[in-house]
């Protein structure tokens, strides 16, 4: 039986879709059968981030309205044979689907896939309720900014109220140089405020922008963010992976600082 994971944040633009694409691709690289579901009806994005936008024939709403079978709507990834995308509809809105329908869909996909990742829309309205309806666990994405952290807190409260089992935190776009100067909250600061378990810290990395331009997730690559996403995937699988990225960058800055001291 597969596990349904919802990726959510409350605030928009903190990197939910990028996280979904990278975590999903990473899990597929680790040999799991994965399906990514874009639940943002009316504002679909996951397809372009995955580079699969030109293959969409049917979408989530078609499946729910029985215009097609689930298999027809699933788009096979071009890189990994065990990775699939169920795209969202662009021409409908959030009310085209109900939480009950989403739960039923998730339960059907559970039979076939190891992981079902739900990319949640921003906000706490119907789209959010749809995305969390069938979820076993949640990944809350935030950036170390006051607005994002505050919205993350609200989301965590709603997830608790909806009895979503495990909730983990991903701190995205962390800039270690700014943290060192005291001008950005550290991941520890964010964890202290939100009081939930951390599952990953992703540094701010220009490679993300380049990867998104090309429609290719960078998980597993040698870039800092690529490694961070792969660590998150391994932690989802239950492995105890040390937090490497931050220390590496600190090492770099220490070396940098020592040059100045000379």
């Amino acid at each position, binding site marked *: 039986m597969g596990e349904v994971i919802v990726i959510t944040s409350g605030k928009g633009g903190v990197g939910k879709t990028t996280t979904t694409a990278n975590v999903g691709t990473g899990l597929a690289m680790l040999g799991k059968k994965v399906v990514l579901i874009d639940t943002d009806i009316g504002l679909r994005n996951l397809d372009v981030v995955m580079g699969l936008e030109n293959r969409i024939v049917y979408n989530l709403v078609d499946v729910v309205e029985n215009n097609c079978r689930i298999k027809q709507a699933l788009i096979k990834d071009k890189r990994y044979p065990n990775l699939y995308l169920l795209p969202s509809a662009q021409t409908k809105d959030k009310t085209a689907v109900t939480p009950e329908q989403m739960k039923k869909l998730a339960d059907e996909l559970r039979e076939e896939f190891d992981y079902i990742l739900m990319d949640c829309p921003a906000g706490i309205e119907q789209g959010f309720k749809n995305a969390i309806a069938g979820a076993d666990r949640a990944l809350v994405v935030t950036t170390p900014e006051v607005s994002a952290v505050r919205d993350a807190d609200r989301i965590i409260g709603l997830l608790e109220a909806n009895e979503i089992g495990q909730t983990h935190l991903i701190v995205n776009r962390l800039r270690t140089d700014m943290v060192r100067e005291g001008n950005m909250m550290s991941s520890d600061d964010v964890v202290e*405020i939100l009081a939930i378990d951390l599952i990953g810290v992703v540094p701010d990395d220009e490679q993300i922008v380049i990867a998104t331009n090309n429609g290719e997730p960078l998980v597993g690559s040698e870039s800092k963010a690529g490694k961070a996403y792969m660590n998150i995937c391994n932690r989802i699988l239950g492995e105890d992976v040390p937090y490497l990225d931050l220390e590496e960058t600190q090492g770099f800055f220490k070396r940098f600082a020592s040059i100045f001291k000379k």
Partner: protein
Amino acid sequence: MGFISNFFKGSENSSDVAKNRLKVAITSDRAVCSPELMEQMKNDIIEVISKYLDIDTEGLDIKVTKTELEDSSGTINALLANIPIKEGSRNFRKR
């Protein structure tokens, strides 16, 4: 330059400011009732307590916070009230 502006600004840097502001904002977000309701409750509490004690209504502070349970089995919402008693007043008024 970051460190120069920090030097002139004094001890607290912007990440600490952010953290403290967030703690306040989130505490009120987590409160179970709206600000209007809080205000009403505050006035009611003042009214009741004033019957017995001479209190400093200006310095009164009421909030709902998450508190660790005694057997540390989880957290619970708790009403926290800080009500200063005016100096010089007798501890208990006669009714």
